[in-house]
Every structure is written in structure tokens, then in C-alpha cells.
């Protein structure tokens, strides 16, 4: 178990969003163990993404959670106890790049609506992924805040379906882990 040198714990005890970048063994049952830990210890998960890393036997899980510092510290320690967890980085807005992708399908029965939505999408650097006589589907990539803002903006047209990937993140700058 590695001791976290780059963990950022500040002193105030208010709830904040934290991004945990967790390197785990790439084998069956690991995701279950981690989500079960969150449930049994009463921690909350805002989003979770999993994918393989540059090394095929390792996966990176990016977990976003909203908690106070004390709960976060306990969460990190409990995660570190799991045998399949190799390394944990606690990231935040300052020390990481982080992105989420969302697909948003909206009502767009008349042509002006379609044009308006297409304009908004281009302002948000989104892409139109699908268009039909009744609907339009937009892809937005950015921070969760940006996706929320776009959703608010277009909500008056009637959102039919939303699919969000959850946050993916990497620390900024040089890498100094020994995996």
C-alpha cells in the first residue's frame, strides 16, 4: 500500500467535489469490490468510469464524489486497503485535466428549433450527432459544469434522453509513479 504524498486535504469541512484517480488490477470482480465498499461504508459516488491504461493488466477508475475532507480521507484509506487497488491520486480542479462527454437528445420538431440548437451546440463546441424530423442529438465534451450549463440552456426545448460518461481525469504535468 503506498502512502499518498500528493493527496490534497484542506482543513475546512464543507462538502466539495473530489476526483479520485484509482489504478486497479484489470481483472474480474474489482469494480464490484470498489462499488460495494462505497455502499457498505456509506460513501457516495457521483460518477465512475473504468478503462484500461497504457498497461493492459491495469485499469484506471475515475471516481467523482462529493464529501467533506474527513470522509474523503477515510474513503481513500479504505480504498487503499483493497488488495486490488494499486494507487490512488486525489485530484481537483487545479491539479488535473478532467473531461466528461454527454449525449443529449432534444425535441426539435420545427426547423427554427433545430437551427437554434445547432447554434448553441457550436457555441459550446458540441457536435450534432443525429438529426431527425422530431429530434436532434448533440454531443458535448467538457467539465461537468459546462455540460450542466448546456443542459440548462436547452431544457426549454424538452430534453428527451441524456447519456453522460462520468468524469475522466489525469493529473497535470510530469508523471512520477513507479507502476
Amino acid at each position: 500500500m503506498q502512502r499518498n504524498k500528493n493527496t490534497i486535504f484542506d482543513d475546512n469541512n464543507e462538502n466539495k467535489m473530489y476526483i479520485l484517480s484509482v489504478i486497479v488490477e484489470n481483472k474480474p470482480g474489482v469494480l464490484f469490490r470498489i462499488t460495494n465498499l462505497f455502499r457498505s461504508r456509506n460513501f457516495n459516488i457521483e460518477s465512475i468510469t473504468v478503462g484500461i491504461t497504457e498497461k493492459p493488466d491495469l485499469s484506471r477508475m475515475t471516481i467523482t464524489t462529493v464529501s467533506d475532507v474527513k470522509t474523503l480521507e477515510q474513503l481513500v484509506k479504505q480504498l487503499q486497503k483493497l488488495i486490488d487497488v494499486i494507487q490512488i491520486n486525489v485530484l481537483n480542479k487545479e491539479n488535473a485535466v478532467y473531461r466528461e462527454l454527454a449525449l443529449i437528445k432534444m425535441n426539435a420538431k420545427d426547423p427554427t428549433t433545430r437551427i437554434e440548437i445547432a447554434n448553441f451546440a457550436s457555441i459550446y463546441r458540441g457536435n450534432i450527432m443525429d438529426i431527425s424530423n422530431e429530434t436532434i442529438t448533440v454531443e458535448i465534451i467538457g467539465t461537468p459544469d459546462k455540460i450542466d450549463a448546456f443542459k440548462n440552456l436547452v431544457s426549454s426545448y424538452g430534453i428527451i434522453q441524456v447519456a453522460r460518461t462520468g468524469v475522466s481525469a489525469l493529473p497535470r504535468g510530469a508523471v512520477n509513479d513507479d507502476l
Partner: protein
Amino acid sequence: MSEMSGAAALMAALEREKVDYIFGLPGGANLPIYDALVDSKIRHILVRHEQSAAHMADGYARIKRKAGVCFATSGPGATNLVTGIATAYADSSPIIAVTGQVALPMIGKDAFQETDIIGVTNPITKYAFQPRVSSEIPEMVKKSFYIAESGRPGPVLLDIPKDVQQQVKKMEFPEYIKVRGYNPIVDADLSEINKACEMILKAEKPMIMAGGGVILSGAFSELQTLAELLSIPVVTTFKGKGSFPENHPLALGPIGMHGHAEANKMVLEADCILAIGARFSDRTVGRFDEFGKDINVIHFDVDPAEIGKNKSVNAAVIGDVKSSLRSLIKLIPKNFRTNEEISKLWLGRKRELFNYYEDSIKDYSREITAKKALRKLREILPADGIVTTEVGQCQMWASLHFDVISPGTFFSSTGLGTMGFGFPASIGAKAARNDVPVVDIAGDGSFSMTENSLAVSVLEELPVIVFLLNNQMLGMVAQWQRTFYNRRYSGVHQHNCPDYCKLAESYGAQAHRVGSMDELEKALKGAVKSNIATVIDIPIDPDEDVYPFVAPGTGLKDMIIGA
């Protein structure tokens, strides 16, 4: 490298780990393993219920300080282990549970006797393995023992599909293994030990609170050296009972819900608490927010996640407590005895409180009470005799009235509080150390849950003494109903059923029902020497309560000493 089946590889790997006992029960999905057992040198103890197999492995582990092994088949066999695994997990006891599983092609088909036991036990195991190819078994066994026994110990599950047990492969038995994500900290950070040392030396009334971690790491002599070097008193948690000789002048005994009254009082008078291998459980400290408030609390523990979990601390020393205590002892100046004056004050205070409570906590006016009976047991049982308990009033009376003299000779289901634990666990303890008498301090409620282990004790010649404090009640529940529910008794009467003497005799065990202290003494003296399991049925007053009592949700300062 030789070719063998997965089952044979399992037995060979267990032999390499120097396993001498396996507690278990066969079934459809572990038949290949039981077939391989025929050719093995390891002694198998056939249980009558898998829960008892897990408790026996647990009791064995706690005395041998080495992982205990239990076997069960798939489905109901495996789920019957669950309570035993949870008990071991709550008390950080290393056991290896080997379960049979339906064959790989049947997994997920809701096959006969199929249960996802890895899923079921996930929150109560340190780790779990399921080999997909038989050649993975030797390495998985080695890793299971390493994970179960190192760091903060705990149960590991090895779930082996039946076809993998049968599959013949070339086997390699590794000498060394590495588990990438698991590197338990052994040697603590010296700067933290220095910081802790300064706090202790500066304190005016420091006190040691020793927990189960001292027993798990076998740091008995280190703890005693430290206490004597500093001449400071030692309280224990209930799990830490017996980590320090309870007849030592510096010993105050366990604190907590049913802690010793003087210990509960005096721990609140300390200005610095050195918690060693303890986790500040609610049963020990009462209220997290009140305990150790405004004083320095120093925490030694092997598990980083315990630091700050229940209690914020002022210094934290993470590592094996035996190693940490050794380093700490080296830092204490050779002739550090400035605390001797304080020690005298402490000892005076201890005597004063002890006498006060001895007078004010009433004993019942019967020929035999739990208190008198347990003091008699202490008198007769040799100091190195091993004692375990069931759960409930009998357990708390044991904590209060039975002094552990030789460190590491006492254990109980302290974390999970599993009724039915003590008796099978005492059989496991006897397997680990058959040269000393082993006693299960029992109540009738708990004993009836696993009493069928009498068959095991008799047939396998692992004789233990069941010291049965029989009030014909689920006594602790009855006490709470008396105290908090206005004597509205609900579901607590066991009546005089069964007749425990006849029951014991039907299994071929010895039995005595005692009506006086003389009869008790005679029965105990016989039982200690006997090579047959003995049940001593001791009728006590159903109204006898356990005091002192710290009610749930209140602090140690709110201790009640009588009704």
C-alpha cells in the same frame, strides 16, 4: 514439477503452509477435495455444522497465531460459514475458508447448490480467490495465507469450482509470492514514534489503552516493559483483555459498556491516552465525541484506515505494534522513573475506587452467583489455561470477574458478538494447544446454538470444559428489557429445556449440575484433569444483572452501578 489434480495441489499447498488441522464438512461440490484428503497427513475434524467449522478455525488461529483452515461445500455449506467468517473479520482473525463451487460451465446457471459466495462474503473477507485453472491453486493458497496473516489479519476465501478441483495439470509451488497492491506497513515512521514519545514523557497522568492488536502481534512482553518502564497504568479494551496480566499492580482491566468500574472512572482522569492496537469502538469508549476530549490521544495501529476513523488523534504510529513498541521503548531514558510519584497516586486511586465499587455493586444473596462462580474458576484453573466465552451476560461477567493472568490466554467474539462462537472456538483452541485445559464460559442461550459440537469434542478427543452459567434465559436481552422496556419480557424464556446434563451425556460427554460452591469446586477440579469433554451446568438467578453498565449512546462518565 509434477502432474496432479487441483484437489491434490490444494492439499499439497496446505501441507507446505504447515497446516495441521482442517475443520470441515463435505458435500457434492468438494468431493474431489475430500478424496485428496484421504492421502494427506493433515488431520481433518468433521463438524456437525459449517458455522462451527469456521469458529473452530478462528479459535485455532487466535491461540496458534497462525491462520486456521475450514472446508465447506458450495451453496448452503458455504453460506453456513458466513457467520463464522464475519466473526473472524470483525475480530481481525486469520482464517482460510475453502469452499467447493459448482463446475465452471454451471456458474451463473442457478445450478443445484450454487451460491455466489464470493459476492456474499465480499464485505466480510480481506480477499477472495476463485481459480479458473487448477494450476493457479498453489500460488493462490500461498497468497491466501500471506494476506490472511500479515498486516491487519483477516479471513480469506478460496472458492474452487468442482471441475477445477478435478483438472490435472503440471503444478508449480512458488517459494515466494508478491501481491502488487498489498504491502502492509511493518516498521513505523520513526519521527511519529518520537513525537508520541515526547507526548508521553511530557504527560502528567498518561495511561495505556491496550487493544486486540497487542494480542494479534504478540506484543505482550513489549507492552509490559513499556508500562513498567513508565510506571503507568494499563486499561484494555474488551478485545485487549488478557494483553496485560490482570493481576499486575498496574492493570486496571477492561473499560467500556461493561468495563471495570475503576477502569472506566480512571481512564477519564488521564491527561494522555496511548491507544495500542485499539479501534475506539462504540462499546469501548461510549461516545466518540466525549472520550479523550481535550487531551492528547496517541494511536498505534497496523491499519492506517483506523487512524481517525472513530476518533481524531494527536499522534499516529502506523505499523506492527510489536515493532513500534520496541522502537518506542528504546527512546525512553533508562532510568525514567519520574512518573513513579504519579504511579503511587494512581495506585492509591485504584485501591480507593476498587474498594468503593466492591462495596457498592451488590452481589446477589444466592449460594452460587455468576461472580462467585467465575472467581472460583480462576482459583482452580491453571494460569496458562485458555478461556473463551459465548456472548451476552456470561461474556460480560467473564470480562468483569475472571482475571486473565497469562497474556494471550483469553479470547471472545468481541466485535461481531456471535452467540454460539465460544464452544466451537474452544475446540479449535484445544487443537492449537492440547497441553492446557480450555474453558468456554457459556450461557444457556449461546450454548444451545452450537451445542452439537459436543459430538466433535468427544469423538475427536478435543476435550473442553463448558462452564455453563444457566439462567434459562436470553439473559442480556432480558436485562435490557428490565432496564429499558419496563420489564416487558419478550422472547427471552428458554425454560429448563433441554436438560444440559442429559444432553451432554447423550453425546458421551461428562456432566455435572452443581448446587453449591463446594460441588462447583469439585466438578471443576475433576474437569480440569479430565480427558473427556465436561459440561458443568451452573444454575443461577435469572434476575442477576451485569453491573456496572454504560448504557448505549452515553459516555463512560454516565456509568450505572446498579438498578
